[in-house]
């Protein structure tokens, strides 16, 4: 099927390894617009996609005590210039279970594309959930990406999310992840984005440290140039004793770009602690001059500094 080949080609260009779709011991799901064009599941993982008018509804369940050994690969994409894709994901990790997902969202020819993702994620006790999302857009900038996630996590569990959009134009981007963390569980949310042209970036990542001894780190790395605008809200609320958190946001601006960082830190328990750091600025002159003194042009030097920060 031609769509399958083309999606995999875009997947490959976005940095994905296509060989994973051929291995029977690795679960995957490939969706073009609202059609499931490739799928494989493994023992202990329930994967049920339902095709809808504008996308799919996927139920993902990791059964009790099952730790899925290999990374589960998801690929969502639209090949034509225009289109809408809505992904609704309902994820449940039962007690003692664990899963790591890597999702590639590819819109290589995007001129006018809307990609919405709504995830309801329920993580049990003593379990883990890692979700990595990598985007690959074309150079036109006509993509609207709106990922939302509501995450609830039990005790002694860990949650890691990594979002990155470093290849191609961002377009309009509005991410909103909110999580509730119970006793002795940990949260790590990271977002890395490089915007240019007239890209618009909005990120809101929130962690509610509700359980005793819960921990959270929210990290954002954003670079914007040209006329791009970014606004980052990183919020940690600690209401339980011994809850600990840190918010860390760095934004680099070039040209006429604008950046706003809003760290929100609420601590209502006297035995909880949350720290934050936020820095917005131009590329550090000394860093750039250091690289130029080894023979790089200014543009190349800036690129190395910015890419390093986003790594």
């Amino acid at each position, binding site marked *: 099927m031609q769509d399958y080949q083309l999606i995999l080609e875009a997947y490959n260009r976005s940095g994905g390894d296509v060989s994973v779709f051929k291995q029977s011991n690795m679960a995957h799901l490939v969706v073009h617009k609202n059609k499931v064009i490739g799928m494989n599941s493994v023992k202990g993982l329930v994967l049920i996609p339902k095709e809808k008018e504008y996308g799919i509804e996927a139920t993902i369940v990791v059964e009790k005590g099952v730790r899925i050994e290999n990374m589960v690969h998801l690929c969502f994409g639209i090949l034509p210039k225009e289109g809408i894709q809505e992904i609704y994901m309902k994820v449940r990790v039962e007690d003692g279970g664990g899963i790591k997902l890597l999702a590639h969202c590819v819109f290589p020819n995007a001129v006018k594309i809307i990609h919405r993702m709504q995830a309801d994620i329920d993580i049990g006790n003593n379990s883990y959930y890692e979700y990595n999302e990598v985007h690959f857009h074309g150079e036109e900038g006509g993509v609207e990406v709106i990922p939302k996630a509501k995450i609830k996590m039990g005790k002694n569990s860990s949650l890691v999310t990594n979002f990155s959009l470093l290849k191609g134009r961002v377009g309009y981007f509005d991410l909103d992840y909110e999580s509730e963390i119970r006793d002795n569980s940990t949260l790590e949310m990271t977002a890395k984005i490089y915007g240019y042209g007239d890209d618009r970036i909005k990120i809101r990542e929130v962690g509610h440290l509700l359980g005793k001894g819960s921990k959270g780190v929210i990290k954002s790395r954003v670079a914007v140039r040209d006329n791009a605008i970014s606004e980052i809200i990183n919020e940690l609320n600690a209401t339980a004793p011994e809850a600990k958190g840190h918010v860390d946001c760095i934004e680099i601006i070039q040209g006429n770009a604008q950046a706003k960082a809003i760290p929100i830190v609420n601590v209502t328990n006297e035995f909880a602690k949350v720290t934050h750091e936020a820095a917005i600025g131009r590329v550090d002159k000394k*860093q750039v*001059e250091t690289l*130029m*003194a080894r*023979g*790089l*042009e200014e543009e190349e030097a800036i690129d190395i500094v910015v890419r*390093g*920060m986003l790594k």
Partner: protein
Amino acid sequence: MEPLLHLENCSLNIDGRQILNNLNLSVKEGTIHSILGSNAAGKSSLAYLIMGCCDYSVDKGKIYFAGKEITNLPISKRAKMGITLAWQEPARFEGLKVRDYISVGMRKVDEYLIEEALREVLLEPKDYLDREVDKSLSGGERKRIELASVFAMHPKLAILDEPDSGIDILALDNIINIIKGLKKQGSTIILITHREEVAQIADITSLMCSGMVVKEGSPQEMSKYFKEKCVPCPTKTFPQEENI
């Protein structure tokens, strides 16, 4: 023979303050030329001026390198001609690996030569190649990596701004060997240092005071003079004719 680097009556003002004042300096090819001077004499500013850093372009005067005037050339161009600088306090880079940092200045990237450069500064390649040039390195480690990256570049002219500061006194011999190694490799060196033991390896020393080169001679002569006449400084503001 015409000098590799020649500064002619160079003056530098920053925010209305005179930092360098009619400074003259000639550096011969193949030599280690040390610069001696108390704090705030203008040594680092001189280094930035030669490198072409953005706030440090001359208000008056001319700079020549390898027979060409470079007064108005940007840093990249000067670096491509073979000038480089090891910073007194080198910058930190999040997400940039030591191997990639060292390779930036290499004409042809070669894993073996990157490792050689690290061995030259007594850092074990396997422990450092994949570390980041970020805040996790100690001051001393960062300065060694700076020297390794200069080494790997094979510059015609290496300006070393206090390569020995912040480095363990026990490691001085090693720093001296690195500088000698650079010279052996064919680089001409401007060596800015406070440490007498290190300054001794120079072929010639220029004494700086208040943004000027006030005296030049053998390293022994100059450090003797510096100790006797400049510490403590008798004028505080400006070198007096009779003291020079």
